[in-house]
């Protein structure tokens, strides 16, 4: 491969070609955008226009870049977190016992509820600068991205094929070498897929986190989220639509420029016996591979990386001896007991702190009230998922069984899943006000509005993967109608459906915090009137507490909600997941 490159660059094609030009333009545009946007991010708060939002459409590209930059910084830290946390959990038997359940809980906690606490904390870190708010916002995005990436990486690390491990041990690969030569490549396809999912989820958070209202004080970080917030308050529907369009463009661009090439690249890391029939393609990657100058130029960094990945970086002698390590692992019962004891003690102390805090600030009645609100929200989430299932499962199956339609619809469904639904929430207010609808009912639809697409595209994928011989068998025994749905296709796509519905339900809980409490300005006869629509539930409870700055209520709301979400996931989704994995995996 590399030799081939060397030949072409020495050959007649000395001059840069049109692909080089294209690539260089893209790279420069990205660099300029990053520099420009990052300057704004560290301005002092008092600087003119540092947190002012202009509704002029000309500002939108700049806002879009600011928002995107936040996303990528958060993604970078999520990767950093993934590589450290998941690796530690996978390598240390003891750490694993604590870190994995913790990750499981973090995954189901509605992070948006915590936003209120993050802001004051980070602002005091960098006083008087926009940077504090930036960090808070980036942290919020990080918390929406990191967990599933870490989970995927951990799972991959635990399932590296045994024979490849033996090869790397046989060659005496050091842990560092093994990490870069075996474990990371093996984990790559799963990690990249989860990065895409995280980015999709992240847009939702960035829109929610840019305009941070806390204690009746709203600070607006320049970005698309703030722009939409400002536009809706002023009732500028045209500006809202422009922002929605910009968002769409941004999502398509990052997908094409970053993820398509990454997915095409990662297909190489899949451990499979035969080359799969369909190759993921990316025009960006193809263009890059055709460049005359850039590709050879990238050989240098590639070689550097290879050298970096092959450094031996041995541990101090003694630990490096595998026989000693094996023996040590055998006789460590005492260590286990000590570890469990310490962990239990810390856990008990935390529980004590929590109980005393809650006992000091709330009565049982408060807790009961919030619990009822949470159950109301749960009802909404369940209702929404059921509704989305009833609508999208048949449609998804219909599409998925028709390859030509599926190929066209699938990217669109994935795009819709990535699209931050909260961008259009203000429009819902407009509808509710205009048609005098009941917010308790109609805001429910918003909860699943953004997440229903996960169900759709997973069901499409499931139907696409449904084996053709099973379809033909069903046809030859003339299994039709109800029997066909219940005995053939629904069990066939069930594992895919569960994956999609689980993602959708997780996202819906977070969406509830934003979706149960929406406001918008509506122009009526020249003046702007502000409407706020509230559906009673734990989401609106937290949102209102955040706006008014009542910390205790936020704590209570988030705590009860987290607890219910965890129980709900365990009781409902886990059995379904186990069923799908054990019985219905084709």
């Amino acid at each position: 491969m590399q030799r081939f490159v060397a030949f072409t660059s020495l050959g007649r094609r000395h001059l840069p070609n049109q692909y080089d030009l294209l690539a260089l333009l893209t790279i420069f545009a990205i660099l300029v955008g990053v520099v420009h946007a990052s300057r704004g991010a560290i301005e002092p708060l008092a600087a003119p226009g540092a947190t002012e939002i202009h509704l002029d459409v000309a500002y939108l590209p700049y806002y879009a870049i600011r928002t995107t930059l936040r996303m990528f910084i958060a993604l970078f830290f999520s990767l950093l977190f993934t590589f450290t946390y998941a690796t530690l959990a996978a390598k240390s038997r003891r750490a694993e016992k604590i870190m994995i359940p913790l990750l499981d809980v973090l995954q189901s906690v509605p992070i948006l509820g915590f936003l209120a606490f993050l802001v004051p904390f980070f602002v005091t870190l960098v006083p008087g600068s926009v940077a504090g708010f930036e960090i808070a916002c980036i942290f919020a995005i990080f918390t929406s991205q990191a967990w599933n990436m870490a989970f995927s990486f951990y799972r991959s690390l635990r399932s590296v094929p045994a024979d490849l491990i033996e090869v790397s041990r046989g060659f005496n690969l050091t842990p560092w070498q093994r990490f870069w030569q075996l474990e990371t490549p093996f984990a790559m396809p799963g990690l990249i897929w989860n990065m895409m999912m995280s980015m999709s989820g992240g847009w939702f958070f960035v829109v929610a986190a840019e305009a941070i209202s806390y204690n009746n004080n709203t600070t607006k970080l320049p970005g698309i989220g703030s722009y939409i917030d400002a536009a809706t308050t002023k009732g500028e529907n045209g500006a809202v639509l422009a922002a929605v369009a910009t968002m769409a463009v941004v999502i398509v661009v990052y997908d094409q420029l970053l993820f398509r090439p990454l997915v095409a690249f990662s297909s190489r890391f899949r451990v499979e016996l035969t080359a799969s029939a369909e190759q993921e393609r990316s025009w960006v990657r193809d263009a890059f591979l055709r460049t005359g100058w850039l590709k050879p130029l990238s050989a240098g960094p590639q070689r550097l990386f290879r050298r970096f990945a092959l450094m031996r970086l041995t541990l101090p002698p003694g630990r490096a001896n595998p026989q000693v390590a094996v023996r040590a692992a055998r006789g460590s019962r005492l260590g286990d007991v000590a570890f469990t004891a310490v962990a239990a003690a810390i856990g008990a102390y935390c529980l004590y702190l929590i109980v005393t805090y809650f006992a000091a600030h709330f009565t049982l009645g408060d807790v009961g009230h919030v619990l009822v609100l949470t159950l109301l929200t749960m009802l909404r989430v369940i209702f929404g998922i059921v509704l989305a299932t009833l609508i999208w499962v048949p449609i998804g199956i219909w599409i998925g069984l028709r390859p030509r339609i599926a190929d066209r619809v699938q990217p669109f469904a994935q795009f819709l899943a990535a699209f931050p639904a909260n961008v259009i929430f203000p429009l819902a207010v407009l509808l509710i006000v205009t048609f005098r609808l009941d917010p308790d009912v109609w805001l429910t639809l918003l909860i699943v509005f953004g997440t229903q697409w996960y169900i759709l595209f997973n069901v499409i994928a499931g139907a696409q993967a449904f084996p053709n011989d099973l379809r033909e068998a069903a046809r030859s025994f003339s299994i039709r109608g109800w029997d066909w749905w219940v005995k053939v296709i629904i069990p066939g796509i069930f594992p895919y459906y569960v994956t999609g519905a689980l993602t959708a339900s997780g996202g819906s809980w977070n969406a509830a915090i934003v979706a149960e409490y929406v406001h918008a300005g509506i122009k009526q006869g020249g003046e702007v009137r502000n409407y706020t629509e509230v559906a009673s539930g734990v989401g609106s409870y937290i949102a209102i507490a955040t706006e008014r700055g009542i910390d205790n209520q936020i704590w209570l709301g988030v705590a009860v909600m987290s607890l219910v979400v965890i129980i709900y996931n365990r009781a409902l989704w886990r059995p379904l997941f186990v069923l799908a994995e054990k019985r219905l995996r084709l």
Partner: protein
Amino acid sequence: MLQDHAQTLLQIDDAVQRYRTGSGDVGPLVLDHVSVELKPGEIVGLLGRSGCGKSSLLRIAAGLAFPIEGKVSCLGRPVTGPVDGVAMVFQSFALFPWLTVLANVELGLRAKGVPEDEARKRALRAIDLIGLDGFESAFPKELSGGMRQRVGFARALVVDPKILLMDEPFSALDVLTAETLRTDLLDLWVEGRMPIKSILMVTHNIEEAVLMCNRIIVLSSNPGRIAAEIPVTMPHPRNRLDPEFRQMVDRIYALMTKRPAPVPTGSATFPGLGLGMALPRVSTNTISGMIEEVHAAPYNGRAGMPELADSLQMEIDDLFPVAETLQLMRFAEIADGAIRLTPAGSRFADMETDARKRLFGDHLLAYVPLAARIRMVLDERPSHSARSSRFLEELEDHMSDEYADRTLKSIVNWGRYGELFAFDEGSETFSLENPQ
């Protein structure tokens, strides 16, 4: 003697290895005081059936696993981990799918810190030697099985090992490809074009062992012990049709089917006694198939194992468990490398399906204690049902989790065929009722 000892490349002394159960406790014996010695210029085959610990032994030699007792030394030094100068070839090839052929071969060198240019040069030489020219930039998934295993060989040879360890390197390949690769490897060996001084290979294919090895170590199963050590003095290249070759194959078959020293109670074929007997995973179709095959002409009730293996296209790893299941259920007897049907076995062969199932059920109850036990529990209980977990736990007292699981699956399968009991997969319950 002393000088002789200095020449030894690899020495395993009195190795004892045990399974580790799920809870981390040590379980049944895998290797029971096994000693192996490897001298320059020889190909040694470890021959045995699954469960004889041959793979464990190979991993001990490779420094990938450590025996609980016993000493291992390699190239004159005690083994404390993977040794430079020992390379391994895997049954599953174990190639890194994201690396090209060249990068796969280079990896071992680069990991050791060999400079890039030199690693490239040596890798290309190894690729050349093993006949992979032109495939340097291909990815493993683009190659056929035979080509992939060639990469496996090139990767092992490139580090200039003194000892080559091979773990059933040809068993994942089809017959023709395996034969080509074997011949190519033997040619390189005979011509001395590899840096290797000695080869230790694991195999369950008797002909392969006789074809390649200078010395064959036959391991008995459960626990692994050395049953025999057979020198093979025929010069390379060997001819499978040579009478001497055939004789040796027959001799090894006889050796491997020899009745072990009589044990006072229970069956000697499977490890463990009574309830603790570990059962192999053998389908009832295969059982009937083999009875029919032995009953019919040309065998007419008595078949030599090598011929049977040939006509059924089964390797000993598949053949022996079936034959021994027949023996356990008293449908056949195995002795001196041949299997002979009992009267019950002959009757079975002549029966219709329903009668066969009844006879099978009767024998299952009579001769497999676990089946009798399950049936007894079901008969005693008013509900006539029992969770499988209670039997699984009982089994786990006697054997490793993996064996217990396999044993239970076998008894479910056999019991269903013999209509002794029903089993519901979802609730994991045995019962006496058949589903409506």
